[in-house]
């Protein structure tokens, strides 16, 4: 099923393991990140942050700071209030403080900003600002937040409780009936903890307002520059920043993972400062600020139930979830999807009845709920269903692989309409799981496990057969701030047959400069090496919604193919003119039009390009270029099956991942090496929260994991060796049959790991462990169960 490679290595179209074009500059240290940019007369900003999770600001005294040499300004909420810029909307239609005028709502919230001529002076001035606080009772536990006597956090919105929204989907009554009629019901509480994307580059910007031209240029760590430009125009239109005067440039980005979609207060303060002072202002967060104040991900308290027949046919799924959003709903989901695409939670299984409800609450924690490499709450959904299938298998005393085979949506059921309303485009779930089982030697491992168990050793095998939902999205359902979630490509062929292609997306390490070039090479036969790809400058790139949710290949990748096809259609006309035949007499092979039956008569795409500027047909416009805005007809549904084998050290509780096999299916593959890189990275980002990562707060709302000392990112030493493989089930509606792959592994991996650990401990009656699975947690279970 491997996609056919149709182009030569010189052209390097789809399927070639082309080395990444962008790597040379990164490997030579010549990448250009926001913090590499220095503008003449640039000022530096640093931020005073709240030590309290909930407090009233009684006073801010900046006298000492303002007296320091080099301090240009101190900005507070009161200053921004004069311009009505102290609050801003979030992408979810909630409101967020830029700087507070009254109360702070989480520890490390921005309180005031210092602008100075030097980064070091700015830091010293921050220390010199005296803020007097009156601490208020914090609300940290989201269940406590819903109690009638809990302090109400958003009184500014006229609220009388901390409930944000209720969202539900599915047929409640039919699901209820299915549960009543079920032979077997299993129920499990699952907490998916608050984590952080922790990209290696933190967030930051340079705001450069030119008071003479009234033009604002913002260099910014953003995954979605166009959306930022429009949002700025909408928020700051009243202070004369209109959209044609705003240019957002997203240079090289050192990892985004969803954390660089939101518009953080720091950006807005820097912009306000630059407008007020008429000078460029740079703001770059440090690591602790990034971990403590920028958007978190996950934080779902899930109660999941499955109903099944006694022979293991799943009949219904019911999920109730409490979502902790911090003090404002600053998630970055499409507008109509407050809980993202969580309703993909029926997963890879043919479940007739399902009902899901999510309630969101405010707490005194940082805002967010961003999609950390998980296409809008898909990790939460996959974790819930993949855990529950194992809980059910344990209850039925059935092999978890067998239970999955019994319930998979079968290949002939596609396109498949799920009980919660999605139309899955394509899939072959049994093939992926079978392949993973063969690669890892599943049956042999089960025999080994039985022997080890007899010796009292702890070995576990875990499966995750996930279905992703990516590529947002079809404009009838998906928008951000009302802007439909299409994406775009503007393709221009130069006279010498080279090309430049610009996109509305923005790579943060995904390899767009290579992947998009290969798509255009595939479609036009112009060598990928000759295709220059540009993104991230709103003055030059066509409008697009940016890169997140594994959407770049499904949307902008499709736009590249469509734009190239438009170019090819014009090229055909020029070729017919040059060869003096009719268009119908031509046949296309990558890079060449030939006359049917006279293969010697041909013209290359390079010759056609030259003719487009030097000898184009009479009556035809000169040039060879096209623009395409691609609105996908549906989402794409990548999938895979992962199997993990663990051994547990009884003495210490340490879990050792012995093997991990990942079979992924993302449809047709554009660059296998980039896909493998995405999967290796994604698996590591799935492993991390499964075993190590968590943002932990104490009951006062103090963050206990505010640096990499305590927020644990795995290194190469801890990370297991990944064994990857693939099946290919093309998307029927994507022009290239591709599906997107950036997030599959992050979404699918945690459940495989947890399922393996629970499997190892199942002889002692363990049915579930919340992530992260730390040695302490495992030891505690072993201790409580009397194993040690």
């Amino acid at each position, binding site marked *: 099923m491997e996609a056919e490679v149709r182009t030569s290595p010189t052209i390097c179209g789809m399927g070639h393991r082309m080395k990444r074009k962008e790597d040379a500059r990164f490997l030579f240290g010549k990448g250009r990140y926001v913090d590499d940019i220095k503008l003449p007369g640039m000022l530096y900003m640093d931020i005073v942050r709240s030590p309290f999770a909930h407090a009233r600001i009684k006073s801010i005294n900046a006298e000492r700071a303002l007296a320091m040499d080099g301090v240009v300004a101190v900005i507070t909420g009161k200053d921004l209030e004069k311009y009505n810029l102290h609050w801003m909307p979030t992408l979810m239609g909630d409101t967020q403080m830029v700087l507070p005028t009254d109360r702070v709502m989480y520890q490390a919230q921005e309180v005031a900003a210092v602008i100075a001529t030097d*980064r*070091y002076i700015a*830091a*010293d001035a921050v*220390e010199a600002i005296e803020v007097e606080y009156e601490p208020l009772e914090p609300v940290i536990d989201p269940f406590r937040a819903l109690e009638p006597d809990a302090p109400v956090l958003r009184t500014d919105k006229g609220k009388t409780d901390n409930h944000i929204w209720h969202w539900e989907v599915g047929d409640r009554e039919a699901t209820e009936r299915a549960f009543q009629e079920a032979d077997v019901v299993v129920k499990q509480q699952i907490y998916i903890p608050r984590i952080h994307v922790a990209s290696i580059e933190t967030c930051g910007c340079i705001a450069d307002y030119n008071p003479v031209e009234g033009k604002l240029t913002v260099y910014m760590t953003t995954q979605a520059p166009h959306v930022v430009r429009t949002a700025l125009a909408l928020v700051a239109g009243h202070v004369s920043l209109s959209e044609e005067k705003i240019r957002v440039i997203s240079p090289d980005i050192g990892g985004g993972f969803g954390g660089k979609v939101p518009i953080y207060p720091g950006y807005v303060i820097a912009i306000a400062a630059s407008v007020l002072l008429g000078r460029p202002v740079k703001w770059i967060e*440090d*690591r*602790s600020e990034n971990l403590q104040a920028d958007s978190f991900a996950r934080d779902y308290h899930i109660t999941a139930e499955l109903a099944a027949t006694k022979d293991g046919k799943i009949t219904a799924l019911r999920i109730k979830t409490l979502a902790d959003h911090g003090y404002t709903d600053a998630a970055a989901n499409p507008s109509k999807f407050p809980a993202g695409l969580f309703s993909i939670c029926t997963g890879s299984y043919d479940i007739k009845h399902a009902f899901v409800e999510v309630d969101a609450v405010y707490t005194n924690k940082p805002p967010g709920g961003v999609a950390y490499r998980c296409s809008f709450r898909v990790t939460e959904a996959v974790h819930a269903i993949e855990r529950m299938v194992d809980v059910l298998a344990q209850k039925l005393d059935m092999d978890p692989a067998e239970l999955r085979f019994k319930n998979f949506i079968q290949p002939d059921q596609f396109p498949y309409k799920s009980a919660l309303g999605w139309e899955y485009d394509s899939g072959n779930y049994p093939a992926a799981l079978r392949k993973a089982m063969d690669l890892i030697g599943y049956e042999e491992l089960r025999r080994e496990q039985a022997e080890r168990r007899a010796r009292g050793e702890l070995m576990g095998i875990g499966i995750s057969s996930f279905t992703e939902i990516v590529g947002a999205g079809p404009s009838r359902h998906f928008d951000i701030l009302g802007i439909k979630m299409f994406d775009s490509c503007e393709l221009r062929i130069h006279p010498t047959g080279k090309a430049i292609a610009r996109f509305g997306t923005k790579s943060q390490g995904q390899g767009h400069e290579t992947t998009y070039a290969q798509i255009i090479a595939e479609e036009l036969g112009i060598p990928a090496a000759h295709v220059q790809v540009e993104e991230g400058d709103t003055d030059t790139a066509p409008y697009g919604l940016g890169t997140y949710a594994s959407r770049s290949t499904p949307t902008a990748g499709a736009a590249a193919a469509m734009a190239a096809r438009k170019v090819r259609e014009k090229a055909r006309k020029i070729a017919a003119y040059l060869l003096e035949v009719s268009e119908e007499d031509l046949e296309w092979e990558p890079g060449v039009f030939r006359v049917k039956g006279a293969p010697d008569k041909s013209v290359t795409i390079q010759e056609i390009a030259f003719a487009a500027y030097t000898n184009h047909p009479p009556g035809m416009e000169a040039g060879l270029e096209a623009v395409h805005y691609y609105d996908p007809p549906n989402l794409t549904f990548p999938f895979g099956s992962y199997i993990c084998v663990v051994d547990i050290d009884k*003495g*210490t*509780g*340490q879990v050792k991942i012995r093997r991990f096999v990942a079979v992924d299916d993302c449809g047709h593959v554009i660059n296998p090496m980039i896909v493998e890189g995405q999967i290796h990275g994604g698996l590591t980002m799935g492993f991390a929260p499964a075993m*190590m990562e968590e943002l*932990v707060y104490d009951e006062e709302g103090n963050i*206990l*994991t505010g640096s990499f*000392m*305590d927020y*644990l*990112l*795995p*290194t190469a*030493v*801890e990370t297991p060796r990944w064994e990857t493989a693939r099946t290919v089930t093309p998307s029927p509606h994507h022009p290239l049959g591709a599906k997107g792959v950036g997030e599959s592994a992050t979404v699918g991996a945690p459940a495989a790991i947890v399922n393996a650990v629970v499997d190892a401990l199942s002889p002692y009656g363990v049915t579930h462990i919340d992530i992260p699975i*730390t*040695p*302490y947690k495992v*030891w*505690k279970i072993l*201790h409580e169960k009397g194993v*040690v």
Partner: protein
Amino acid sequence: MIPPPFTYAAPTSLEEALALLQQHGPMAKILAGGHSLLPMMKLRLLEPEVLIDLRRVPGLADIREENGYLHLGAMVREVELEEHPLIRAKYPLLYETTRWIADPQVRNMGTVGGNLAHGDPGNDHPATMMAYDAQLVVVGPRGERVIPAREFFLDFYTTALEPDEILTAIRIPTPPPRSGGAYEKLERKVGDYATAAVAVQLSLAEDGTLSYVGIGLTNVAHVPLFAARSCAHLQGQRPTPERIDEAAQMASEDCNPRSDLRGSAEYKRAMVRELTRRAFRRALERAQGGQ
């Protein structure tokens, strides 16, 4: 992550360094590898006015055996311990301990003296130096004095070093034949401080009894600990599994860990017991291997 302003001094002799230290008193800090001090300054947890860098002071980076000791200059970097054939061959406990410290980048800069003088109970060398019964050589305006490692660590980040003294060397007794050592550390990831760690150094007499036992514990109290009761229980005895277990149990009782994100105090005590057993077993194997 930006420290307040400070002055940097790079003396070229020990006398000059001591004079600077005396001149600036408690406002000065000695800079060795800087991999604990500089992060604390960047977090503004420490705000010294003067840094006195010892890197240009000669004679502080020797590794040599003399008079029955291994002499380590205080400025010997961790990477030098890792790569020195003598350490690897004759001081496996020290070699193993060094390999567990932080990560290669930190070990390229961090020094053995800094690791000790910092007084952090999470550092790895203190337990090992206690297990070896090492001596720490310090120099001050009143001349040189020698402090046993087991008496050096007084409180949280507090050592027996006077504010005007500088740690210049460490002396580790060269182990006799039939000796062995091992370091067992449980950490959450590379570069983490220990959830618990145990250093064991032992020697066997001709008759198979234990002629020397030193056990040090890392990060399970406000100071690094010498497991005195465990050592006494084993000293002169045959290392039977029961006796090892009893000594391990004593170590777990005598430590005083705090609950934190690494685990509860109860867990850490259990880990001390488990790691003591494991370290002892490996040390014993090495001793019996006729090293």
